[in-house]
Structures are given as structure tokens and as C-alpha cells.
């Protein structure tokens, strides 16, 4: 019972983790990407589309990441080059994404398609551990990969020149500009990398959970990731426990009866992630937001 709960938690966590990592990258560079929901939706759409065309799931996942990077560059044109307000720009992009994916889905997809999901890959020895073994070490490759990506994002942000410049773009863009580095260039690269990760999260929804695309498949998960970024304090490592908490809340919803929670209406369980996010935003206001978050850079 606990084992099943943990296993579903991990599966539900992977898309959220990838989206959270992507948002961390863009926010650390000073870009608040509310369009995360739309990028995730496009990622899921691309993955399902490529699967339907036939080249297989690994190609589908890569295609989703590539589309995400392209969308990141498109958003950079809006947010960085044209200094469009990031909040309205993001909201409008989400409307656009929901509309376009739904319209194209109607036209090109077999509505009744039930695709398949990635098979599991048991790690030798570790997967034999009691309880946690099957949950943590008998999962699809993409699940392990998402944890590796958390480490990679941490390394990129804190151990490379690119990461240093990226964080400077989010904290003191003027200083970065004075040092002769293009703030716009760094933010564009951050959006490309971040949106690739977010789109990967959308693809994970398809290849790990449903196997197929349905209109509005993300159902606000991008916005939940936006909240998790706050809980995780913009740290890729803290993203892991924070995401696990939200994933756990979601999987309890699916297995409410196992835990004697039938009396709690599913709607209230579904509210939990959003309430946690509101509480975090409210009590966590002392948190150090990246100083230039949401502020377009203008050279004076």
C-alpha cells in the first residue's frame, strides 16, 4: 500500500520536477515565465504527435525538448528583445497555446488513441530494497534522468561561467552589462534551456502517465510548478523534496480510499497544492527573490 503510494508519487512527480527545474533556470535569470503552462502543453502535444507519427517514444521526448527550446527563443523575443510585460505576455501565451493545441488536436489526432507509456527499468540490487526499492529504483528511465537533470541544473547554475552570468542577469543585470556580457543573450539562452526542460515535463505527462494527448492535459500543473519554485527557494536540490511533497498530495488524491480518506471529497484534496502554494507565497515573503525578477533590462 505504502509502496504503491510511493511508486505513483514518483511517477506524478517527474513532470512537475522537470517543469520546476525549467522555471528555476528562467527565474534565476530574471524572467518570470507565467507561460510555463503553455510551454508544458506544447511539450505534451509534440510528444504525443511524434509518437502518433511513429518514430517512437525516445524521439518524441527529444522532439518535445527541441520544441520547448524554440518556444523559449520565441518568448525571449517577446520578453527580452521587445520588453513585453512578462505577466500579460505569459497569460496570453497560455491562451494561445491552449487554443492552438486543441484546434490541431481536433484535426490531426485520433481522439480515442490510447498510447503506451515507457516501460520500467529496475536498477539491480537497489530495486530489491524493501518498500522504497520498487518505488525509487524500479521506474522508467526518464524518472532517473529527471533527478540527474536536477543535479545538472545545479551544476550549470553554480559551477559554470554561464551559470554565474545567468544569476547575475537575475540579480544585477547592470553589473553584468558593465562586465561586457549581453544581458539579453544570457536571458535568451536561459529561456531556451528552461523552456526545453518545461516542455520535457509536458512530454513526461504523456510518456509516463496517459500515453496520449488530451486537450488541456496539463490542467494547471505548470502553475503548480510556479508555486513549487517558491517553496524550493529557486534551488534545484530543494526542488526534489518540494516536488515530492506536491506529488504525494496528488497521489493521495488517487488512492484516497486506501487511506480511509473517502470522506474527504476529491475536490478538496485537489485544492491542496494550490493552498500550499498560497500559504508559501504568503508566509515566505522574506524569501530572497532574484532581485531583477520580472524587470526587463534597459540600458541607460
Amino acid at each position, binding site marked *: 500500500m505504502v509502496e504503491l503510494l510511493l511508486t505513483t508519487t514518483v511517477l506524478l512527480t517527474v513532470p512537475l520536477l522537470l517543469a520546476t527545474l525549467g522555471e528555476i533556470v528562467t527565474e534565476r535569470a530574471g524572467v*518570470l515565465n*507565467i507561460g510555463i503552462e503553455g510551454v508544458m502543453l506544447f511539450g505534451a502535444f509534440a510528444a504525443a504527435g511524434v509518437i502518433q507519427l511513429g518514430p517512437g517514444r525516445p524521439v518524441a521526448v527529444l522532439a518535445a525538448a527541441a520544441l520547448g527550446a524554440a518556444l523559449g527563443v520565441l518568448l525571449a*523575443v*517577446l520578453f527580452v528583445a*521587445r*520588453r*513585453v*510585460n512578462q*505577466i*500579460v*505576455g505569459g*497569460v*496570453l*501565451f*497560455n*491562451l*494561445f*497555446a*491552449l*487554443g*492552438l493545441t*486543441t*484546434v*490541431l*488536436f*481536433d*484535426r490531426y489526432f485520433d481522439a480515442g488513441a490510447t498510447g503506451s507509456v515507457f516501460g520500467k527499468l529496475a536498477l539491480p540490487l537497489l530495486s530489491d530494497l524493501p518498500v522504497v526499492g520498487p518505488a525509487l529504483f524500479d521506474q522508467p528511465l526518464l524518472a532517473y534522468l529527471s533527478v540527474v537533470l536536477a543535479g545538472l541544473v545545479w551544476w550549470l547554475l553554480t559551477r559554470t561561467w554561464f551559470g554565474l552570468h545567468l544569476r547575475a542577469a537575475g540579480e544585477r543585470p547592470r553589473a553584468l552589462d558593465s562586465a561586457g556580457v549581453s544581458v539579453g543573450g544570457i536571458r535568451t539562452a536561459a529561456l531556451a534551456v528552461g523552456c526545453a526542460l518545461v516542455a520535457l515535463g509536458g512530454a513526461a505527462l504523456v510518456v509516463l502517465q496517459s500515453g496520449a494527448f488530451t*486537450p488541456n492535459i496539463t490542467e*494547471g500543473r505548470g*502553475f503548480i510548478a*510556479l*508555486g513549487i519554485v*517558491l517553496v524550493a527557494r529557486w534551488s534545484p536540490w530543494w526542488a526534489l523534496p518540494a516536488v515530492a511533497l506536491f506529488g504525494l498530495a496528488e497521489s493521495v488524491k488517487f488512492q484516497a480510499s486506501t487511506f480511509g480518506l473517502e470522506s474527504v*471529497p476529491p*475536490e*478538496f484534496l*485537489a*485544492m491542496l497544492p*494550490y*493552498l500550499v*502554494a*498560497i500559504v508559501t*507565497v*504568503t*508566509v515566505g*515573503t522574506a524569501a530572497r*527573490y532574484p532581485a*531583477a*525578477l*520580472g*524587470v*526587463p533590462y*534597459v540600458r541607460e
Partner: protein
Amino acid sequence: MRRLGSLADWRQRLDWRYLARLLASLALTLLLVGLIFDLAGADPVAAFEALIRGSLGNPLGVEQTIELGAILVLAGLAVTIPARASLWNIGGEGQIFAGALAAASVALKVTGPDPAIVMLLALLAGLLAGAAVAAVAGALRALTGANEVLTTLMLNFVIALLTFYAITNWFPAAGIRGSTPEIPRDVELPTLLGGDITSGVLLALACVVAAHVLLTRTRLGLTIRAVGANPEAARHNGIRLGSVYTVSFAIGGAFAGLAGAIVVLGIDGLLARDFSPGYGFVGIAVALLARSRPLLVVPAAALFSIVTVGGSYLESAVGLSADVALVIQGTLLLLLLALWVIPPQRAAGVR
């Protein structure tokens, strides 16, 4: 302070480069949307023609366009008032849900008084519910500095889920799944001149005038605009920022709540789970296009209403999903923003 909307301002803005950018963004929108129509398997010319025919070319379409226009006017005002205090209300959707739920609850559960009284009570309940939900976000911003973009965004989901719960558990309807029973005929809003158009349209227009007067002719409006122009200066002049935040959000939320009540009492005649295809978010686009001027909200809402009603007609006319309206609206607004027809606002950080 620059007097926005003055004649000189318009003359300055209507230079040839501005016109060129406006025309370019309209042309690009037509081109891109046409491409998307084509990609989705519809003849672009036929689709654009059907869009206009569906919304303006037949009596039923005109009626729907006017009624939806009223809802979008209110959704736009819900964003406009906080925007003038430099606050983002991304929670219009949740506030509309709150208004709809409250109005439906009163209309279905209160049976004692005269039906006309019940109707007024239901409208008032919707208005207050929207105001209360929005005020929460405003108060949190005032008390702890919680970012209002994120709190209103998250509240949307909380209120929508609460509404779903209420529909299945408080008002189980016999027959129709996913909606409450029908509201008694005599509790519904009266129609105009014996036609089919709800009198909620008049309410929406009254709200436009009220919002305009509030912002331009009252002390509160001046206070709101002062906070929006320069919060630090306003604070040094003895304005309490916290109460302005809370009040401007509550007023915005009241408009959204009223929108939800009008949908239930005047248009749908019941509360359905899926009554709003994102009205609250379209309201943000409406307010943006109207440059946060209440009087300009009317033409902006009209444009979006035409596209939405026409878009829903495309399903039967050329076989496109009704969500194509979102594509058109998103493309147009993003291009207007990208080409600086709507110029970038002064830097507004997240905190």
C-alpha cells in the same frame, strides 16, 4: 504627471509610425491566423467569413455577441481597477466562479421572499462573493507583501474546485450531469424589451460608467491612481497603501462576481461546471487592449466577443474547434504587444 488619454497624447500617438505598427500587427495577425486555419484544414477565407457571419451576420449571433460582450466588459473592469493601482488581478476567473456559485446558491436555496427580491439578493451575493475572494489577495498583499499575481492565480483553482464540489454535492441535478438544476424562471434576470437579450447587459454598461466616474471623479479613484503612479510618493502623502490594495482588489472582484451572477441568472439559467471557457483570462486581454480605461473596455470587449462567438460558429461552419478563438485573441494581443502598439509599461518587478 502625464495626462493619459488627453488629446495631445492621442495626436502624439497617432503618428505614422504608430499607424504603420498597428496595421502591421493586424496584417500579421490575419496572416498567422490564416496559416493556422489552413494548417487545421479549413479554407482561411471561408473561415474568416464564417467568423463574422456567426457573430454579426444573424440575429442569434448578434444576441450572443452582446450578451458575451457584457460578461467580458465586467471581466475587463475586474482587471482594470486594480491595474490602475499597479496591481495585477490574474484571478478574474476564480472571482467569476465565486460570483456564479453564490448567485446560484441564493437563487436555488432562498425561497421565502418575492422572486424579484431573491433575484436582487442573488446578484448582490455574486457581487460580494467576487469582492471577497479578490479582497483576500489584496489583503494578503497588504499584510505580508504576498505577490498578488501568484495568489490570484492559485485562488482561481481553489474556487473552481470548490464550485465543482458544490455542483455535485449541494445541488445534485436530476438529469443533467455537471450542472445545477435550472433556476426558477421568475428568479432569472428579465430580458430587454421583451426580446431575448438579458438586462444584465444594462448592468454591465452601468458598471462601465460607475468605474469611469470612480476613477476620474472621486477621491478614492484619485487615491488609487496616485498609488498606481508612484506608491512611495503616495505613502509619504499619508495614503495607506494596504487599504488601497485591498479596496481596489475588492472593487475589481465585485465586477467579476457580478459577471458570474449574470451568466447564471441571465444567460445560462443554471450553474454548469464548464460555464466559463476562461472569461477571467480573456478579461486581462480586454483590459490590456483598453489600456485600463473603463470607457475603452466596451469596444475592446466587443472585439473579443465577436471573435469568441464567431469562433464557436466555426465548429459547425468549417469544422474547427471553438478554441480557435483563443488562438486569434492570443495572436492579436501578442503582436500588438510585440510591435509596441501597446507600448511596454514602466518596469514593474515581481515584488
